[in-house]
């Protein structure tokens, strides 16, 4: 048990670091969802099932979903912007 607990902590530290260091937000969302699951596992191993349950529903489902939706909105807007710029450039040419 003890070894598991230490291992999961180390894993939490590593995953958290990886989430921060992932620079592309789309990949980062996937990392964040995974990180949420790892945290939930940690809560289970430290005898906190209530917290683990809410971590699963929030950290691994609701949050990544909100991130994904807003990223796709932002990306779409940026694409539109680029298209408009492209057209202007073509016109100028």
């Amino acid at each position: 048990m003890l070894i598991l607990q230490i291992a999961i902590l180390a894993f939490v530290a590593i995953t958290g670091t990886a989430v921060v260091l992932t620079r592309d937000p789309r990949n980062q969302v996937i990392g964040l969802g995974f990180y949420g699951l790892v945290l939930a596992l940690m809560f289970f191993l430290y005898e906190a099932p209530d917290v683990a349950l809410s971590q699963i529903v929030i950290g691994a489902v609701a949050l990544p979903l909100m991130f994904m939706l807003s990223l796709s909105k932002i990306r779409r807007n940026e694409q539109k912007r680029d298209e408009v710029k492209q057209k202007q450039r073509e016109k100028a040419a």
Partner: protein
Amino acid sequence: MSIFPYLVAAWLFLVGLYGVISSRNFVHIAMCLAVVQSSTYVLLLAIGYKTGGVPPIFAGAQVGTPAVDPIVQALMLTDIVVEATVVALLLALAVQIQKAAGTVNPDRLLELQG
């Protein structure tokens, strides 16, 4: 084991902050703040833990088993809600700033200087 979880908490806090200061995207910053917040989970969890303890749920548990602290767990539940709400607000702001300024990169926003 004696202080390792505390160190992990401090590490997560600082790594998250590093993400915030070096970020070029407000959405990325929101995710880094989620990591910063997870440091408080680790800290609270470690504080309330008892070696060999059982979860604080007493359906059919024999009397006298030491259970871990339920208070910190209740605090963590609140903490998780706070995380979700803060992230939602930050994302809404990020979406809006993209519409208004055309970018989510803090490096490119120069209006509030001086």
